[in-house]
């Protein structure tokens, strides 16, 4: 069941096309992540959904109500969509309680509701009368989430809300926000440029590039079966090798690896994620894959080992514990776990 539906939405600013014919369907209760490099149009897309911008073309509908198309435009304050901005955008002149209660009516249960919301986002009630600047970055973001939740939105938009936080806090805040939203059963769209965040947060990930959705689907599908090389390397490290396709296998510098070769013949590129590669120093007599270690860089918990395959000038790099790292110059064998991916064969 589609909850939010974008159909060929476009938006231009002068000569720049910020969002180009984007179509996207978000099911109810789903967590969708829009990920893309900076300048790819993520924030504009979010602002179109929120109602701060009107699309030049296309339509946006939520629960079968048109939010914006050629004729109609429902402004932000009548959409019932929650938004958490990058730095929280808390009102500096209001206390935490008044920030959270900003969208609430001045009814009898207001105070109780504010307290319930604070509890929901795990904020201590002693912060009730503090000002936003007296809170840490992570706490401010929780207030922003509570403030948006107060209106019981049907859709919550998160505009890189974790990017201003440092690494450890970032993950913890992300997890707790994600839990709160799931418990409340709110459909969520997160915008981020961080691929790790995108893959771990979303039920659905849409990759945006130059204003277009180049691929959308479940995170693992996108990660292991990206549509093209750019998407592949945006979502994580990749190893791309020339290969000759056979029947459900491909022959490459690593030897014969499994691959869905249906529809591919002759020569082409295959893609592997580095974590699919296993390095071992035990090279049995007569085995192929003659590869040599060219460099070992010590880095504390893990070492970076550079290995050069015969007939290839680009070294492969492996991360492994210093205890397992081979010597420079040692001959090594590389085995592959799982199947290699061939571009242009994305299932999504």
């Amino acid at each position, binding site marked *: 069941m589609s909850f939010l539906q974008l159909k060929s939405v476009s938006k231009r600013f002068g000569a720049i096309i910020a969002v180009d014919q984007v179509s996207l369907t978000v099911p109810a209760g789903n967590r969708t992540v829009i990920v893309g490099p900076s300048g790819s149009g993520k924030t504009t897309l979010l602002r179109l959904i929120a109602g701060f911008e009107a699309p030049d073309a296309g339509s946006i509908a939520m629960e079968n109500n048109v939010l914006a198309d050629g004729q109609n435009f429902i402004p932000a304050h009548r959409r019932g969509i929650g938004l958490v901005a990058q730095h929280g955008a808390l009102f500096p002149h209001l206390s935490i309680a008044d920030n959270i209660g900003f*969208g609430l009516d001045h009814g009898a249960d207001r105070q109780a509701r504010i307290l319930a919301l604070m509890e929901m986002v795990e904020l201590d009630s002693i912060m009730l009368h503090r000002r936003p600047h007296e809170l840490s970055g992570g706490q401010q973001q929780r207030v922003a989430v509570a403030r948006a939740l107060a209106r019981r939105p049907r859709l919550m938009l998160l505009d890189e809300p974790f990017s201003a936080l440092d690494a450890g806090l970032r993950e913890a805040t992300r997890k707790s926000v994600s839990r709160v939203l799931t418990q409340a059963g709110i459909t969520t769209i997160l915008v981020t440029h961080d691929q790790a965040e995108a893959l771990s947060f979303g039920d659905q990930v849409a990759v945006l590039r130059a204003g277009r959705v180049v691929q959308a689907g479940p995170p693992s599908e996108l990660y292991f079966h990206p549509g093209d090389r750019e998407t592949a390397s945006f979502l994580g490290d990749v190893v791309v090798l020339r290969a000759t396709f056979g029947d459900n296998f491909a022959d490459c510098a690593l030897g014969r690896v499994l691959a869905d070769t249906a529809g591919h013949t002759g020569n082409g590129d295959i893609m592997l994620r580095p974590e699919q590669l296993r390095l071992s120093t035990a090279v049995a007599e007569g085995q192929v894959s003659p590869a040599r270690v060219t460099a070992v860089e010590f880095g504390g918990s893990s070492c970076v080992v550079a290995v050069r395959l015969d007939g290839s000038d680009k070294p492969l790099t492996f991360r492994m514990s210093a205890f397992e790292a081979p010597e420079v110059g040692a001959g090594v064998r590389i085995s592959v776990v799982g199947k290699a991916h061939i571009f242009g064969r994305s299932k999504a």
Partner: protein
Amino acid sequence: MAFLQRRTSSIAAPATGAAIVVSIAALVPLGFILWITFQTGWGTASALLFRPRVGQLLVNTTLLEALAVPLSVLLGVALAWLTERTSLPGARLWSWLAVAPLAIPAFVHSYAWMTVAPGWSGLPAAVSISVLAYFPFLYLPVAAQLRRLDPAVEEAAAALGLDPWRVFFRVVLPQLRFAICSGALLIGLHLLAEYGLYVTVRFDTFTTAIMDQFQSAFNGPAANMIALVLAIYCLGLLVLEQVLRGNARYARVGGGAARMPTPRQLGWYALPCLLLPLAITFLALGVPLLTLIRWLMIGGAGIWHAEVATAFMQTVLLAVVGGLLATITAMPMAWLSVRAPGRLAYILESCHYYVGSLPGVVVALALVTLAVHAFLPLYQTIATLLLAYLLLFLPRALVGLRSSVAQTPIELEEAAMTLGRSPWRAVLATTVRLAAPGAAASMALVGLGIATELTATLMLAPSGVETLATGFWSSTSELDYARAAPYAALMILLSLPLIFLLQAQSKRMAGR
């Protein structure tokens, strides 16, 4: 109006409407002068324009600008460098004292000098007293900019082999260009508008000539023609400043906060260097204040008559109402120029600023002409006087408001909207609320401008309305210097907060 389509906020349209109305209202008086000139006919107009008298005024005004502005630049930069970048003893105190002369209206400066040196008149007196009264307008932005310069840039220059003098001229001075240009423009415009000072030292400028025509002969066409020349001269200064300023940007490149500069150790030079702030403080503050105190003592209790109290009350009332009016009027433009900038917003903003840069005498004359020809009931009313204040001080209101609107992130307005507030209520709950301190500062700046305004008030105030400035002026015109002293003392007291405000603002700009 492309920006109106881009922004879906339903506020941009009415705000633009309001700003257009204000801009047109601001341009009407000026347009009226042009129309009157046009009606006069080319023959009469050219006869009035191309005569020796106008030529002499042009030479006088140009000489004044050409001497007083560069001298103020020299003095302002030297003092700013000494107080901001060297180990000058008591630098903080000197920095306050360098701004303080602004609390004394220029015509009070000249009144003091007439007491001390009655024979000091003509161009030398006009230039020297102008510099003493107005150099803080240059000192302020230059000192603020010096505080913000990244010392790493100067160190880089030194590491590239430049000696301290060459570092100053090749690295520091170019970075001060914006500050110097804007300060010099402000002084240039004030010199064009100043009336009281030049009457006291018997030096004729366009402004004094217009007042002469207006007061003695009520010679409409002649006054109008000179006013037109003055308005064009003023436009010329604005253009000249734009050209000199260029469009290069001198922003600091790189992240993080700049280090505090290390003050240059003056060593034994500290003593001769101290002479400059000492002398300037004596001339620009000591002379006027000591003279004033002397007159107050000579006058005794007798000079504090009821008229002073009335003038004080009327001044405060006009300042408060005018400040409020100007701030409310500037609000749509301030919001527009920050939230929906574009070509139209830029043009509207220029209209707001241009009329404010015109001398009071031009604006007042335009309003008088307009009232006499078209709206006679408005002639010599408080409404016309307030309108003149509004037009003259609109830029002051706009500057403060604009920066506080700019400091309020638009995300707050948007957050309020996603929380169910309509766009109007969202702006009221966030931006307007948060811009309140800026609005208060704007009101104070406008109010203080009104409290010491002389020319337009002389021309437009209905009979019975006397401000501190006009009260002071009528007493000095009768050569009753003691009687004038209480008015001057009250004006200075009222203006003191302005100094705190300006100094605090320039420190805040540098984040200190």
